[in-house]
C-alpha cells in the first residue's frame, strides 16, 4: 500500500502531538474545584433525609460511600446497619448505638413470618447491639478502594488509618499522610495521625515519662500535629447550635476536644508549662468550658505558682 507524503506528514504530526500534548492535558482539570453544592454538608443532609434520597438508597451516595458501607458490613459480621440513611451526618454515624439494622427488628417489622424468615437466613442483629468486631484485616482493601475512588473521603481515611494502625503503625502513617495531602483542611486526619504517631512512639520508647532529647523532640512533633488539628477544628466549629448543627455531629465535637486536650497535655508534659498554660487559656476562651481542660489549667497554675 502506497502512503502519500501528506498522509505521512499527518501521521508524524499525530505522533509528535501524542508525545508532547500531555503537557497541555495536565493543565485541563475542569472537575477539580471547591465550593460545589454537592460538597456542601447541608445539601448532603437534606438529600439524605428526603424521601427520594431514601427511595434511591445507595444510588444517592458516591462509589466511595458504597464501599465504606461494605467495610461496616464486614466489621459487623455481615449485619447491615441503616446508619448512612437514618443518620444524616457522615461524622456522626460511625458506631451509632441507636442505628437500625436494614432488616428490621420483630417489633418494627410489619411483614410477619416473611421478616422472621429473613432474620433467620440473613445476618441480623438487635439494633444497637453490635456484634463482636473482627480484627479489621478484611476491611483494609475496602478502605483503600474507598479512598482511591474518592481521595476526599476523610471518613475512609480516618477509619482506615485506625484499622491499619492495629496491624502496622508505619503503614497507617503513610496512609494518613496521603489523606492529608489530599485533604489539608481535615482536622480529623491530623488528630488520627497524632494518635497513631503517639502509639508508635509509646511502643518504641522504653520510658515515656523520662524521654531523651531526641525522643522529646519527636513527642513535640506529635504535639504539633494535635495542635494543628485543634486549630483547624476551632476554625471549622460552628459558633452556635452545636447539638443540632447538621454538619457538626457528636463525633466532630469529641474529636475537636480530644485534639485540644492532647495538644495542651503534651505541651505540658514534654514542652513548656508556660506555653501549655497560655494554650489552655486560649482554647477555653475560644471553645467554651471543659472540665478536663480546666483541671489541667488549674494544675498548671499551681505548678507555675500563679
Amino acid at each position: 500500500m502506497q502512503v502519500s507524503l501528506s498522509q505521512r506528514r499527518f501521521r508524524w504530526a499525530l505522533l509528535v502531538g501524542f508525545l508532547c500534548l500531555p503537557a497541555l492535558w495536565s493543565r485541563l482539570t475542569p472537575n477539580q474545584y471547591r465550593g460545589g453544592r454537592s460538597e456542601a454538608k447541608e445539601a448532603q443532609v437534606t438529600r439524605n433525609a428526603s424521601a427520594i434520597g431514601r427511595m434511591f438508597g445507595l444510588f444517592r451516595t458516591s462509589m466511595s460511600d458504597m464501599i465504606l458501607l461494605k467495610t461496616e458490613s464486614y466489621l459487623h459480621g455481615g449485619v447491615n446497619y441503616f446508619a448512612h440513611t437514618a443518620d444524616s451526618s457522615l461524622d456522626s454515624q460511625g458506631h451509632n448505638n441507636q442505628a437500625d439494622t436494614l432488616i428490621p427488628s420483630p417489633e418494627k417489622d410489619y411483614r410477619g413470618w416473611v421478616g422472621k424468615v429473613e432474620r433467620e437466613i440473613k445476618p441480623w442483629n438487635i439494633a444497637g447491639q453490635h456484634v463482636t468486631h473482627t480484627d479489621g484485616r478484611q476491611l483494609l482493601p475496602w478502605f483503600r478502594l474507598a479512598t482511591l475512588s474518592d481521595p476526599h473521603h476523610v471518613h475512609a481515611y480516618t477509619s482506615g488509618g485506625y484499622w491499619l494502625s492495629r496491624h502496622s503503625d508505619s503503614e497507617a502513617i503513610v496512609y494518613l499522610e496521603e489523606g492529608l495531602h489530599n485533604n489539608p483542611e481535615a482536622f480529623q486526619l491530623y488528630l488520627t495521625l497524632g494518635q497513631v504517631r503517639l502509639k508508635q512512639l509509646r511502643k518504641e520508647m522504653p520510658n515515656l515519662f523520662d524521654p531523651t532529647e531526641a525522643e522529646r523532640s519527636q513527642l513535640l512533633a506529635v504535639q504539633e500535629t494535635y495542635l494543628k488539628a485543634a486549630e483547624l477544628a476551632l476554625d471549622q466549629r460552628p459558633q452556635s447550635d452545636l447539638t443540632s448543627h447538621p454538619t457538626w455531629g457528636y463525633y466532630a465535637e469529641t474529636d475537636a476536644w480530644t485534639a485540644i486536650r492532647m495538644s495542651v497535655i503534651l505541651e505540658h508534659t514534654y514542652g513548656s508549662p508556660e506555653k501549655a498554660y497560655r494554650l489552655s487559656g486560649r482554647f477555653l476562651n475560644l471553645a467554651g468550658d471543659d472540665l478536663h481542660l480546666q483541671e489541667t489549667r488549674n494544675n498548671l497554675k499551681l505548678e507555675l505558682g500563679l
Partner: protein
Amino acid sequence: MNRTRQNIDLISRGVWIELIRKKDLYVLAMLIGVFGIGTLTSHFVGIEEPATATFLFNMGLTLSHLFAHSLVALLIIRQVPNDLENRSIYPILARPIRRAHYLLGKWWAAGISGALTYGLFVTWICLTVPRMEEFSRALFLQNLLLQISSLFLFSAAGLLLSLVLPKAVGLLILVTALLIYQPIIGLIRSLSSGGAWTALVNWFILLWPDFTKLNLTTRFTDGLDALPLPVFAGLLLQAVFFCLLCLSRSQACFERRSL
C-alpha cells in the same frame, strides 16, 4: 468529495438499520423513561427541597451520559467483527468503497447515534425534573458540546479496539475507561508516588484519553460558572486530537489487514 460522502452515508445507514433492529436503544429508552416517570410522580407528590431536585437532575443527566456512551460502545464494538464474521464486508468492499470510508461511516454513525440519544435523553430529563436552583446556561452548552465530542471519541476508541482485540475485551476496556478510570489512575499514581518513576508514570497516564474530564455534569449541577474559554477549547482539542489519533490508527490497522 461527493462520492466520499455518499459512501460514508451508505455505511452509516447500515449501522442505523442495525440500531433500529436491535434491542439496545429500546432498553435504554425504557430505563430513562422509567426514571423520568418516577421523577414526574415525585414532582406531582411534591419535592420540597431544592437540594433533592438538584440531586435528581444530576442523576438524570448522569444516566443520560452513561446510557448514550453504553449505546455507542455496544454499537461500535460489534460493527467490524460482525461484518467479518458474517462475511457481509465482502459485498460492501466489492463496491467502489475505500476501507477508510467504510471505517469513517461506522464511526460517524455510532457517534451520531450516541449524540442523538444523549440529546433526546437530556431533553426528557429537562422536561421531567424540576429545577429549583440556578444553573449556568453557558456551562450547560459547554457540557453538551463536550459530551458530543466525548461520544465521538468513544466511538473512535471503540472502533480501534474492535480492530485489534476481541469484542468482549474491547467492550470491557471501554466500560472501564468510562466508569472506573479515576480509581484505576488513582491506584497507579499511589503505587508509583514517591518513586523515581512518578513523573514518567504521570506523563504516561496523560497519553490516554480521560473521558471523565469531558463530563461536566456534576460541575453544572453544583452551580458553578462556565469554564474559561481556553480550558473549554483545550478540552475540545483533546477530544478531537484523540479522535483523529484513534481513527488514524484504525485506518492503519484495517488497511494492513488481510480480509
